[in-house]
């Protein structure tokens, strides 16, 4: 967030006073809301210690419910990411192919799976594995969840990759051709690495979506992921509010770790590539969420725009 200050002048004394006033008013409103909520919850006895205590004192809550649920969430999310990323890249490249018979089917697959709710994809996958495979019933939910997530997210990632490649300067491909590279080489050695790096923020957001969407697996296909343990925790240990709060915090921390890791990774990749000048303007935690970052001349954003 270094210098969006291009949008406003350096504040003078009056502007600074006004900004301070805004800040105070804004904080007052926030504090008022927080105080009112706190009062309401206290009146209703929701904040009584006994309703929250087992989270900190009863290890069974963690070993029997939260941790197994977390493990299932991580397994499903990890598998989905590992399969969806390469598959999405393939589909994205397929949509850019010169050959109509590759481009059109790849496009159809992407558009089709992007149009259907993930919940339904999981439901179909579950039924398909029952009809046409010998996957045992205790593994089927995992397979169904992963399949549903892969089909949807690979399609979205395909669009991200495609947008990333299209956003690169034409000169990159031209230069590749000029030194005698074949089409496949240009894609794998020149375009894709740059596109993936520049689209990393969008890719990371999609990975966060994968982690969150595992929560749909508990709804119709009986996958025992993290969110589905809320009921058990509420039934056996704490109040519903406490159970919800606990699981929510875990999700936020988990996804925060994921974005931080991606930020670190991006930093590494960018350092390693210093001077090649292919990175679009990005910062770590400020990722955009959707494909289609449109390139342009020097922009209002932060970070050096080093494209040529």
């Amino acid at each position, binding site marked *: 967030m270094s210098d969006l200050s291009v949008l406003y002048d350096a504040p003078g004394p009056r502007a600074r006073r006004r900004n301070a006033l805004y800040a105070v008013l804004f904080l007052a409103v926030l504090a008022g809301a927080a105080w009112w909520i706190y009062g309401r919850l206290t009146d*209703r006895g929701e904040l009584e210690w006994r*309703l929250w205590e087992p989270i900190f004192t*009863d290890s*069974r*809550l963690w070993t*029997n*419910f939260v941790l197994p649920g977390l493990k299932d969430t991580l*397994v499903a999310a*990890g*598998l989905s990411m*590992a*399969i969806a*990323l*390469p598959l999405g890249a393939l589909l994205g490249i397929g949509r850019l192919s010169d050959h109509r018979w590759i481009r059109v089917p790849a496009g159809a697959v992407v558009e089709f799976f992007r149009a259907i709710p993930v919940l339904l994809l999981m439901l179909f996958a579950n039924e398909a594995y*029952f009809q046409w495979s010998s996957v*045992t*019933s*205790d*593994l*089927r939910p*995992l397979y169904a969840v992963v399949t549903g997530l892969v089909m949807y997210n690979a399609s979205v990632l395909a669009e991200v990759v495609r947008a990333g490649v299209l956003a690169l300067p034409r000169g990159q491909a031209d230069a590749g051709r000029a030194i005698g590279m074949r089409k496949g080489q240009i894609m794998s*050695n020149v375009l894709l*690495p740059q596109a*993936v790096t520049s689209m990393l923020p969008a890719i990371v957001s999609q990975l966060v979506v994968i982690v969150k969407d595992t929560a749909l697996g508990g*709804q*119709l296909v*009986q996958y025992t992921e993290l969110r589905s343990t809320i*009921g*058990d925790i*509420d*039934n*056996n*240990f704490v*109040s*519903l*509010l406490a159970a919800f709060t606990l699981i929510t915090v875990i999700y936020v921390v988990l996804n925060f770790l994921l974005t931080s890791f991606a930020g670190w990774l991006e930093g590494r*990749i960018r350092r*390693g590539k210093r001077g090649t000048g292919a990175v679009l303007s990005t910062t770590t935690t400020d990722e955009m969420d959707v494909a289609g970052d449109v390139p342009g001349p020097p922009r209002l954003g932060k970070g050096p725009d080093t494209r040529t």
Partner: protein
Amino acid sequence: MRLRKASVLAAPLLALALTATACGGGGGDEGDGDGITIGIKFDQPGIGLRDANSEFSGFDVDVATYIAGELGYEPGQITWEEAPSADRENMLRRGDVDMIVASYSITPERAEQVAFAGPYFLAHQDLLISSDAETPTEESIGDLTLCSVGGSTSAQRMEDEYGANLQNFQTYSECLDGIVGGSLDALTTDDAILAGYAAQDEYAGELTLAGLNLSDEYYGVGLPLDSDRVDAVNEAITRMVDDGSWDRFVEENFGSSGYEPEPAPAIGSAPTTE
């Protein structure tokens, strides 16, 4: 460039490794010969609940254990599966479970898709209300805001027959706080299920049953449509009632809640045709 090549290679390898661990961790004993898989509820106190130690308790669990014992399975050979209401027919059809004992009402529609043994229990649809609230009558149900679980037959009936305002959630627990706080008037489902919630520590003394017999729900043991076990299960249920085990299970699971169920219904007493 080297890093990128490596990462491209690493992704499928990681996928393989994860698959391997997933299989190693999850691959259970599916063998039909040396065990039995039974579908129960995991979230209904008194009926079928996964407790703090991740063990199972409740009336349906006791009944299922007894029947499995009569069929020749030790308690250690039983694998419990969660059987959510909407998925029960499918679980039997797919063979995910060998039988279902999960507050499973015998209805003509369901009897077309699964085989039922029993019934082993007779419950009635009822309302769970705040202890401070006035006890409603059947006529005043239309004025109430009721809560139930989306898609359940009891919820659909309340809306269609009584014209009640209906709030649907995904689990019964989500209704309870609304009732205690007054945003909702009542939770409706079978009295046996409601009794379990009323007896929970968290709501001690705050919730009570209205005592309206709005319907007859005959709980049966669900078996696959082509099952050859119906007679054996029926015999097991008869024995369970005759040797006093049934009364003991009722006492153990409903005793503390003050709920007194009907006597055990006769085998085959549930209506299976319209």
